[in-house]
């Protein structure tokens, strides 16, 4: 488990991370969401031992010094633009990482490279951006570390490659208790893969944890009305969001489901049913009232 307590980092007079406290349970995929400059990368670089915090603590499996070598052997940090030696191939990088992470499985590298159609002997500099990301992700997963820290790994990739990478991570998480912390500035990159999400804004944390759990009294109802009277519904129920698309009206309403369904029944719908909220919708509702411009991360 990773426990971050009151972590602070200043770059001269700029506060990049401001008293952030997060707990990441083992075996989950934790998303760090925020706009550019929110402090995501700084937080991850501190977690990876690259930067030294100005204040606060990081505990990894209750170990106080997270930069201790035995502790760092449990981490693999994957930046948005990974570094590789000039002319190095996947094979060469794997051999290098093997010296640093003795548990790295070279065979797994070979296997996954084959599955992803990546030439293991070809210099990495000749790879496209997506291929490089895949190559480093498979190196990261093959290193068999307990924690994987990824910074904007899905940024700028096409949907197919993004999905391939997500599947790789899912598969690895299923096979062993891998904990992944992934930072992104787009909610859509994280919504279908992250169990927990923390939102960073101007160095501080707006919210963190299991968002779906927090939205238990918010429901999404899809209805068809012959003659819809939205003002009536809004007076009757706590309607947070309303969208009309042809015959369909989608309502996000706060309150108990039974009360909501009764209220809708009074409006005489042709058809009504509850549909699950997307993470984006959950996020929007949770963020409502914080003053945060949600459109920046959508």
């Amino acid at each position, binding site marked *: 488990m990773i426990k971050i307590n009151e972590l602070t980092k200043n770059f001269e007079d700029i506060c990049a991370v401001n008293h952030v406290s997060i707990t990441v349970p083992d075996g989950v995929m934790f998303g760090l969401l925020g706009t550019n400059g929110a402090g995501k990368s700084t937080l991850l670089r501190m977690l*990876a*031992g690259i930067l030294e915090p100005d204040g606060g603590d990081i505990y990894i499996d209750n170990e106080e010094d997270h930069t201790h*070598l035995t502790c*760092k052997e449990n981490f693999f*940090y994957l930046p948005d*633009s990974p570094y590789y030696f000039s002319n190095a191939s996947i094979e060469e990088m794997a051999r290098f990482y093997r*010296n*640093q992470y003795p548990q790295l499985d070279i065979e797994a590298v070979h296997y996954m490279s084959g599955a992803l159609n990546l030439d293991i002997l070809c210099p990495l500099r000749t790879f496209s951006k997506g291929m490089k990301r895949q190559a480093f992700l498979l190196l990261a997963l093959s290193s068999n570390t307990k924690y994987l820290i990824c910074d904007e790994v899905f940024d700028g990739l096409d949907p197919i490659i993004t999905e391939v990478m997500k599947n790789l991570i899912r598969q690895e998480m299923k096979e062993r208790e891998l904990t992944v912390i992934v930072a992104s500035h787009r909610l859509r990159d994280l919504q279908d893969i992250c169990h927990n999400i923390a939102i960073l804004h101007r160095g501080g944390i707006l919210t963190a944890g299991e968002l779906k759990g927090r939205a238990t009294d918010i429901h999404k109802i899809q209805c068809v009305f012959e003659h819809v009277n939205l003002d009536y519904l809004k007076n009757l129920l706590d309607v947070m969001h309303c969208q009309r698309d042809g015959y369909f009206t989608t309502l996000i309403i706060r309150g108990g489901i039974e009360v909501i369904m009764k209220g809708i029944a009074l409006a005489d719908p042709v058809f009504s049913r509850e549909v699950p909220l997307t993470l984006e919708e959950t996020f929007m509702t949770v963020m409502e009232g914080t003053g945060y411009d949600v459109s920046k991360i959508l």
Partner: protein
Amino acid sequence: MMSVKYFNNWIKEAGRGHITAIVSWISFAVYGSLTISRLSLDTEYTYFGIGSMELSRICACLGIVIAFSEFFYLLQQKKQDFYYSLPVKKSTIFWSRYFHGMLHFVISLSIVMIICSIYQSTIDEEFRLHAVGYSIKSILIFTAIFLMFYHIAAVSIVVCGKLYSAVLVTGILIFYFQLFINGICQAFIKSYFATYYKIPVIEKLNIVLVPLSLSGKFSGTDLFEKEKILTYLPNTFYGAAVFLWLAVPFLIFAWANRTRKTEATGKVFAVPGAERSIEFLISFSAALWAGGFLLEVTHINEKSRLLCGIIVAAVGAITAVGVHCLFEWIVENTKRKIFRRKPQLIAEIVSAVIGGVLFLGYAPVYDNFFPAKETLKTIGVSVNGLDMGHSEFIQNTNEDGKFITDRRLKQYTFSSEGMEAAKDWIQDLKKSEDVGNYIVKTGSQDSYTFATVCYHMEGGKERYRTYSVSRRAFDAFSNVYNTAEYKSRAYPVSAIEDVNDLNNNGFTWSDGISQKALKLSDSEKATLITKYKEDIEDLRMEDLKGQLPSGEIEIESQISGRTTRMIIYPFFGQTCTFLGQHGVKIDTGLSNYAVESIMVHNVLHSTAPGTSGGTIVQIYDEKEDIEKWDNRLVPQKFDVQTLISPLDYSIDAEAEVNEETTNSIIKIDCHAKLN
């Protein structure tokens, strides 16, 4: 505790780019090949280790290049993130690279030294005796030189966050003191100190604070004799200086690497202390330089000392502020506050003003210096133009003639009656010339020549001064000249106590045109020397006025091969009589020889604005023309007193003389006598 294996793995990792290996091994391969080919041609003046300037420079360059190659990752954000995210200590990465660079250098240097040593041993018997010692000393000395520059570059990289700033700081560390001493301090000293010749402390600082000069000195590149080079051991003083250049940067970068923050990469300076230090050094020296430059350009120091002080202080202060602000703008501080370091700015201004004013305030103390009797051990005096030919006089008058003065100061060092006479003469000189006044040095109408004095103090210190000498003071120097001590220095043969020492030496008479070996027995040689000594004893400086030597006797040592000159004037009665009795014609000149032709170069100097000088060349080969000239011409060899017995230096002549005994044509360079 870090295991050796783990550290070795990182040393191997440091060699991934192979840049260090390539640079180091190729440099030494090329150096070794070229040195061996030179050794095959010459083993007398070719040195592969100690004494080799090329090797000294190669080591300096390799120190810098290898340091940049090894520690370049500290200037690369991406690479640094990559390394620091791995399960490895930051210090392991740093020190493994440090040792990697050093190992490649030491191994390649050692191999080249051993190969060259083996090769030279096979062809040079003299070297063979010193081969092991010389090679080991060479390896140690050049490793120290390498480390000096390696550490300088390493400290620059560690305290900087950008490549260009690291390169600049390396340059500053290598050249700062050289520029500061030669470009700034010397400008002030020359402008303010009227009696300045040289200051030994500054000369030494110019070596120990300048890594390039120090490395040359430390590796014996100023030695020329093979025996001295093969048995060379570095001077302790310079050894200590090298050690400090190794240790101080080492301690700084070891400390800075521990405190350096990763996020500092990309900034101009990664360590705030380094930024402040460099800012201070640059602002302070720029302010002083501006003051010195103003002095050199405007010569305001000649007008008023007070005005000069005020102007230099004002210019220094303005420059310090300007450079400080410029520096703040360059380092891109996030607050963009140019005056964020007010106390430092004030310190820079105050230091610059104090620095400039200190020179000014110290000038009278410097110029009026005269040692107390009990503190003075010996005194060296060199009067420019006395016992000196015209060409040497011109060279010595110019800046590049320091080596002549230095040589003469050693030659004319007095400790007894000469010293007392010289002290009296200098004190009279100081009183009459008022050496504290700037006008003295820059061309009083009364100035005739100058004298350089070296006061050798008890305790080994040396103080040098240059005084302007008027015609009257020059004539008054006869009090020194006429002492036996002075004459023993000016006419070394007169100082020989045991004439039997010259028994095996060859004596050759020369009238400036031809030479003749003197067939003298040992007793005759002794007689000649005795008579010459008596003539010198009677010699007075006043006697030399308008007199030219009749000839000279060269005494060549059979042991050392050194030649000692005995200048013979026509009024040396006893010597001339003796020589006459032994078949030497004393009063011969060009007119006594068969002159074939005379080529006369008449140098015309520009005398008025709008006119230009030039040279008229005339060749005379008619008998009447030659007769007109041959009585006027004097071999340049006998131009030995350019101030006391000057010649017409606007005329350079070359006489072609038919030497009948050898039936050959000889060319004699001459000047004309004054009309």
